[in-house]
């Protein structure tokens, strides 16, 4: 049975589109560890659960190193700050650049910088 939730009680989400700059291309799992580790480091376990970050796997573009992250609308600034605090992934120097914050994937895609 699929549990339903009242629309008014659903979490309001924001989608953060980001680009990863690194010395060499990074795989999905390495990127995911870096993002979640940084959010946990900055916001703590309590903040991580409140932010409920979710990296959308099928929107990760390994060639362009771009991805989408869904977070609670209350935690957008904290998550952006966590992404900005990433300095390296493994032994490689790396930085995240936030491209856009949108309310839906559709609007995010239509207004993405080319």
């Amino acid at each position, binding site marked *: 049975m699929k549990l339903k939730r009242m629309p008014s009680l659903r979490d309001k989400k924001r989608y953060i589109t980001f680009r990863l700059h690194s010395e060499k291309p990074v795989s999905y799992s390495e990127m995911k560890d870096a993002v979640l580790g940084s959010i946990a480091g900055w916001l703590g376990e309590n903040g991580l659960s409140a932010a409920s970050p979710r990296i959308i796997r099928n929107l990760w573009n390994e060639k362009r190193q771009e991805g989408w992250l869904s977070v609670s609308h209350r935690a*957008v*600034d*904290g998550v*952006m*700050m966590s*992404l*900005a*605090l990433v*300095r390296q992934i493994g032994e490689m*120097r790396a*930085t995240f*650049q*936030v491209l856009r*914050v949108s309310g839906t994937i559709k609007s995010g895609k239509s207004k993405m910088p080319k």
Partner: protein
Amino acid sequence: MKSYDYCILASSDEIIRKAEGLGWDGVCILESGTAVKEMPRSRMDVMKGLLIETAKPDEARSAAQRARKIQEIVAVRGLNEDVNRIASETPEVDILLPGPGARIDFVMVKLARKNNVAVGFDFSQLLHSSRRERSSAFSVMLENAKIVKKFGAPFVLTSGAVSEWDLRAPSELAAFGRVLGLDAPSIREAMSGKMAEENRKRLGGKWVMPGVEVE
């Protein structure tokens, strides 16, 4: 709306290219020496400035007064409270960057507002530290931000980048400001090119005093 990073501590073509790619409209490269070097060429607005880093208050004041007529931006990194106080009292200073662990109080913030000295919040202090050190640096920044907000003093949000890997996009520095508790309109103003414009006007030769210009 234009966005400027007023505190980049290295000058190279890579750093300028990266800043351009991240969406900055202008950057200020701060150097410790007084020699005016050739800036890297770019479509972006690249300014030059002087960073005074000292523990002696008198030295900071005299260096700022000497540099004012040739530099577009004059910044002071106060390594102790005395230097922070002198910097906030000196109208020739544009940016006061409180050094790690050097606090500012409401007296300094009031003086900074009177003398139009912007209090700098340096993101690199958080980036280059970890755990305990980062949390103590952030708590000092939160305290400073609270006083700056209360007294309406000017402030700037800077990356303090020493390499292209330390640069962050304008949206990320704005998020840093919001995390510090500063409000969105004042963050937009802090990152605008207003300070650069005003200082260029002053260096132009036609400026006499605020509101008075020679034709």
